[in-house]
């Protein structure tokens, strides 16, 4: 069976993570611009800055959290490592290393996508009336990448590492969106049940492309707890934390069994444990302990899992690991 270079595995894992990250960010910006208006009809962009705890870095670079500044910071600012262009640049750098392995189509698409972002003009393309169009085109480019990968990428070990990165990042992003939104959107007595309140929760679901899926499960009504529970524990929603982690666990299992990567025991143990925990949780019990603390705990575990994966598969320096 063909071996996979450890460096390639690491690059694939991260290429997938960066693409997923860019897509999530584009969704958040898009939905935020459209739906998250306050009762005065203007959009408050500060919550977005809390998403990755970016406030400090942002205010080092920009004086005010105006639409224009926040958008520039998140879309085109190469100095901001959490911007879309930084994510795509990082994905492309990984893809450059991976060119011997990935399909020509994957590289060509990513290369053109990046060059397209480079050519954007802040003054026009980031103007408020163009934001939706821009976010839609970025999302579509990310989804095109997913489609091209699905249709052209050889299904060997590399594919497993790609899916691992994608699902782990998706789970992580879901907890971040939920965390920040839950806090800023905690119903204040004044807003409960008002149209603004509903539109805020709408916005949260839509940023995860989950509004219609949610409606299937809950045709009527919308409570913060139901939305949070849906994003965390729904069995069938492709962006729920549970579905992503089930995928991660099964990928790690198959790497161990199909490819006999025995060093994968450690990450597998952690992912088994995480999955077990997620499967037996209810949103009510989570909220009673504190949603923020729970999400925090998940994020720490995702980071540990990512590190375990790196230790097991990417850092091969010990002479004790001879095979064939």
């Amino acid at each position, binding site marked *: 069976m*063909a*071996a996979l270079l450890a460096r390639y*595995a690491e690059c694939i894992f991260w290429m997938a993570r960066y693409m997923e990250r860019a897509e999530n960010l584009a969704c958040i910006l898009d939905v935020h611009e459209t739906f998250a208006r306050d009762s005065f009809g203007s959009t408050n962009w500060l919550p977005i800055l809390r998403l990755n705890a970016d406030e400090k870095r942002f205010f080092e670079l920009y004086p005010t959290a105006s639409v224009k500044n926040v958008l520039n910071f998140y879309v085109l600012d190469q100095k901001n490592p959490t911007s879309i262009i930084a994510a795509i640049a990082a994905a492309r750098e990984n893809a450059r290393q991976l060119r011997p392995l990935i399909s020509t189509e994957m590289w060509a698409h990513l290369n053109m996508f990046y*060059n397209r972002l480079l050519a954007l003009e802040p003054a026009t393309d980031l103007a408020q009336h163009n934001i939706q169009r821009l976010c839609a085109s970025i999302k579509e480019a990310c989804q095109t990448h997913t489609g091209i990968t699905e249709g052209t990428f050889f299904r060997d070990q590399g594919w497993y590492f790609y899916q691992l990165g994608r699902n782990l990042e998706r789970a992580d992003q879901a907890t971040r969106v939920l965390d920040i939104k839950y806090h800023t959107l905690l119903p204040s007595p004044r807003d409960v049940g008002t149209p603004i309140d509903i539109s805020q929760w709408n916005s949260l679901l839509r940023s995860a492309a989950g509004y219609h899926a949610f409606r299937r499960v809950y045709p009527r009504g919308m409570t913060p707890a139901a939305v949070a529970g849906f994003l965390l524990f729904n069995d069938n929603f492709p962006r729920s934390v549970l579905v992503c982690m089930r995928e991660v666990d099964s990928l790690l299992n198959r790497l161990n069994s199909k490819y006999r990567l025995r060093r994968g025991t450690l990450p597998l143990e952690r992912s088994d444990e995480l999955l077990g925990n997620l499967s037996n949780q209810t949103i009510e019990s989570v909220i009673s302990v504190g949603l923020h603390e729970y999400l925090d705990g998940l994020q720490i575990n995702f980071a540990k899992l990512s590190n375990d994966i790196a230790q097991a598969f990417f850092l091969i320096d010990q002479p004790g690991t001879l095979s064939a």
Partner: protein
Amino acid sequence: MSASPSTADRMARRAQGALLSGSGKGVDDLLSSYDANGFYDELFGSASKPASHTEAVKDRLRQLDYDDLRRRASDAERELYNLGITFLVYSDAKAVDRILPFDVIPRIIAAKEWAHLEKGVQQRIAALNMFLHDIYHDQHVLKDGIIPAELVLGNANYRPQMQGITLPFKTYIHIAGVDLVRDHEGTFRVLEDNGRVPSGVSYVVENRHMMLRAFPDLMGDIGLRNVENYGAKLLDAMCEIAPPRADVDSYDPQVVLLSPGAYNSAYFEHIFLAREMGVPLVEGRDLAVIDDKVYMKTTGGLRRVDSIYRRIGDDFLDPLAFNPDSMLGVPGIFEAYRKGNVALANAIGTGVADDKAVYAYVPRMIKYYLGEDALIPNVDTHICREPDALQYTLDNLDKLVVKPVGEAGGYGITIGPRASKAELEECRAKLLEDPANYISQPMVPLSVCPTLTEEGIEPRHVDLRPFAITAKSTWVLPGGLTRVALKKGTLIVNSSQGGGSKDTWVLTEGGQAEPEPVADDSTDPFHTQSQSHAALSSSQSQSQSQ
């Protein structure tokens, strides 16, 4: 929008060129007023030696619309850029992707002429390999006074560490790129041997793919030799030279391509070759040497490597054996190689054979080792370490091309007839200071080929680099890389000096279509289902290890 500034500029200029020259013009008009200025022309030949083999292509070219030709040319360059068929150029501390400019008017070689070149290249490689084996063993060629010993033993690229190491099939130069030029009489001559890490073969194949996409109407039924199976031939050679292993049941050598990494200017070619061979592209940091055996770091642990196509120069290969500062290499790899535990292509120490001064002796080498005359002559060369040659060179500076022996990439060359007085004096001073570092040659009036330029279709100088692969025997890729000096009047074709490339068409005997490649040619993208599964899977298994 997706092109680099320079590419975009050029595209814009081309579009403008199309407007200036007015639409509705046919290529026919431009070719009728075309004038090769007395040089041998690759499409038309010369007055005494008109090219008859290009009639069919000329007819088809004449039927093209000029604006259409331009549009297809700029589409082709855009596609090269988007596909990342590029090399990296560093400017202002930033790495920029550049395409090798591509000219759409092909360079065409007749079947008979190619047969001669192919034999000539094989002969030359055979002699160079015998020479290398000799100097790293008994050194008969030096003892018999055929080549001055100090020229070899004092050469910076002579590696005493290689003394006494015997290689499979006594092959040192597994991959060669021999630079040929054609003079005003239409005679091909060898300008340079590249026996270290010759590059450019990826462009040969990619240029063909580009032409197949952009000009199916130009090439259909012409009867061209295909260039598809270079990767398969290279993999075969890498497997042939892999050391035998007794510790595994069914031995399928693990081949890898060792690259300096994604920021090397030739990275695209490394990718291309790794993919064509179906082997991992590794960097130094992906390999480890333990007990004089080479391993690569995989997700499943360390895995033995048997045969390495290295695209890293001798100096950087092993910090323990050569340049201690190298970060690109693999510590200990030379010892593994010396003990016969891993194969390297090309061998270490081949640089002494493609030295510009040693070059002058190659015809004598061919006579000495093979008892034959060189099928492809050299360009007359004056070795300035010899006093007479130095005097001759100094006396005729304005007529000669003076080259430093150790430089590559067209750097440091003084072209006498084109040089200013000051440049000539500077050259004279350098010659006097270090004569052994220089050779001189008469200026070869390089042949030209019609080329699409901003001014229309104009003659531009070309050379030819055929690629040869040698393990047990030597195989030559039909054609090779035609480099074209895009700047008007210039003779330097190197990509680093503003050169571009053309597709090189070797015609089949009698214009017949070449038989389809045999079924085990896994690099042919046009495989159909009817081809046997057994053949397909056996070729694939070569790229996978036990």
